[in-house]
């Protein structure tokens, strides 16, 4: 899978954060909480990039910025050549149609009152894409689920199967970029392996550019061409995964590697 020279996603000196209520009697004034600080990142077409960060690192915020959900306070966000936040909403949607998103918790990301088929069809309806039956069948085959899954409810499925459904839903509209938020954190080790293999399989088959956010170095090893270490809202290290693993330069990275086998 050759890496193209064109840039799929680019973040240029992005600073992002939220307004929160300040404590105490000054609560009339809102306080600005900066979560991402001057982050610059490039994801090239056809490559797999993993952002490694723990809770509080800003990784969820970074994903929101990339997905067009949170306008940064400073900096530019360019997806497939278009600067996302300078476009009106309708144009933005068209650009983001090229992105497929797999959210974090398979137990909470599917509407429990909808049968799987309706959850799968959501992106098609939203984007006005036709041939729902055909696409659904194809995409379920890709994630190795039987077609009858369509008629089940999310609670009938195990965690691993739900995660596959989420991945299926993320690729049903033929995106070019696949973004995954902690795709294996809620799953057991044996299922984790299945999902990792599945993601790589789809990467090859569908010619995707993959962006993954995870806290698990082991998972990152299997999903990364390049790795980006995020700590307290800043990128502290980046490079090809092997290089980062074998010659880490930043102390936090070294600590991450050292404590990998202490998840008791």
């Amino acid at each position: 899978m050759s890496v193209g020279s064109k840039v799929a996603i680019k973040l240029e000196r992005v600073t992002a954060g939220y307004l929160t209520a300040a404590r105490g009697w000054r609560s009339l004034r809102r306080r600005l909480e900066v979560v991402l600080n001057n982050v610059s990142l490039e994801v090239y077409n056809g490559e797999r990039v993993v952002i490694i960060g723990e809770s509080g690192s800003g990784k969820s915020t970074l994903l929101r910025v990339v997905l067009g959900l949170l306008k940064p306070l400073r900096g530019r966000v360019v997806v497939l050549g278009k600067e996302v936040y300078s476009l009106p909403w309708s144009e933005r949607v068209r650009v983001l149609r090229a992105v497929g998103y797999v959210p974090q918790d398979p137990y909470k990301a599917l509407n429990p009152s909808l049968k799987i088929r309706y959850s799968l069809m959501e992106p098609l309806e939203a984007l006005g894409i036709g041939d729902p039956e055909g696409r659904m069948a194809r995409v379920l085959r890709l994630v190795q689920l039987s077609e009858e899954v369509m008629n089940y409810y999310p609670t009938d499925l195990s965690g691993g199967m739900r995660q596959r459904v989420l991945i299926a839903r993320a690729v049903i509209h033929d995106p070019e970029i696949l973004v995954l938020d902690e795709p294996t954190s809620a799953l057991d080790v044996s299922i984790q392996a299945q999902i990792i293999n599945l993601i790589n399989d789809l990467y090859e088959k569908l010619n995707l550019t993959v962006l993954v956010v995870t806290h698990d170095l082991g998972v990152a090893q299997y999903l990364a061409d390049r790795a980006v270490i995020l700590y307290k809202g800043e990128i502290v290290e980046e490079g090809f995964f092997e290089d980062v693993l074998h010659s880490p330069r930043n102390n936090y990275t070294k600590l991450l590697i050292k404590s990998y086998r202490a998840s008791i």
Partner: protein
Amino acid sequence: MEAMVLAVKAVGLRVGYLDSEENVLWAVREASFEVSEGEIFCLVGESGCGKSTVGNAIAGILPPHAVTEGELHIFDRPVIQGGRMNYNGVRGRIVSYVPQNPGTGLNPYYTVEDQFYYVLNSLYGLGRRKAVEVSRNYLSLVGLDPDRVLDYYPHELSGGMQQRAAIALALSTGARVVVADEPTSSIDANLRLQLIKLLLDLRDSQRISLFLITHDIMSAGKICDTIAVMYAGRLLEVGRGSEVVTEPLHQYTRMLVDAAPTLGFKKALRSIPGEPPRPGVVVEGCAFRPRCPWAFEKCVEAPPRVGVFGREVECWRYVG
């Protein structure tokens, strides 16, 4: 051969729950194991295998509608015998518990200081001042500054601080066995190693026995003296930590190790086909048979436990 003091001993322990039709759903079908004093014992398994239930049984917090069979002894005290449970004088004094999720495991209505007080006062009748003294010791032990923690409510502390406070609280009871359900799962990398080191130090200095429940077999292999691999309510393999991971005997253990990523060596990730049986579902014969590459005719019967090279395995392939 000196007599090893057994901190925990389970013989044919079974734990189940009554469903709405008065049937028993067994979460733990058969567990027999021993934890020596001053040992770090890891119970490893995937979700739904019953490991948390075993932990609850040792800690004395099985729900009131739980049904038990078999025996569980803690320092020779029978806490479970057949259908009867008796934890008098055991909870807190002998066995302590660190919850998996400190956010919900600490009482949100009381400050950290209050929580120490209520525990120490209940157990040992300590007054407030003494309780605060004790709490200061243990908070410092886990790397927390007491002055920055005691007067705060749990939700005002970060996740890592909450977890460490929960550990300090559990240690302060003076228990000799600590049951911890994934204690470092919600802690940042910074502190994880520190905490592991702390647990190891405690084991060495105070001969505290640790009963750790985890899903990560590779981490268990590095830290634990003994590993027990649990699947569908049974212990499929029990043996020395390092050996079980480097030379697994049971197919399930081997596949767990194969499926776990190793950092630095990008082996092929082989996943285990199929899914573990849902908790409570009755299984005929060996629970792992449908997914096992070694399965043969004998496996339709429940395999006995056999001793192999100092380890215990439940598999027909090792019989005879």
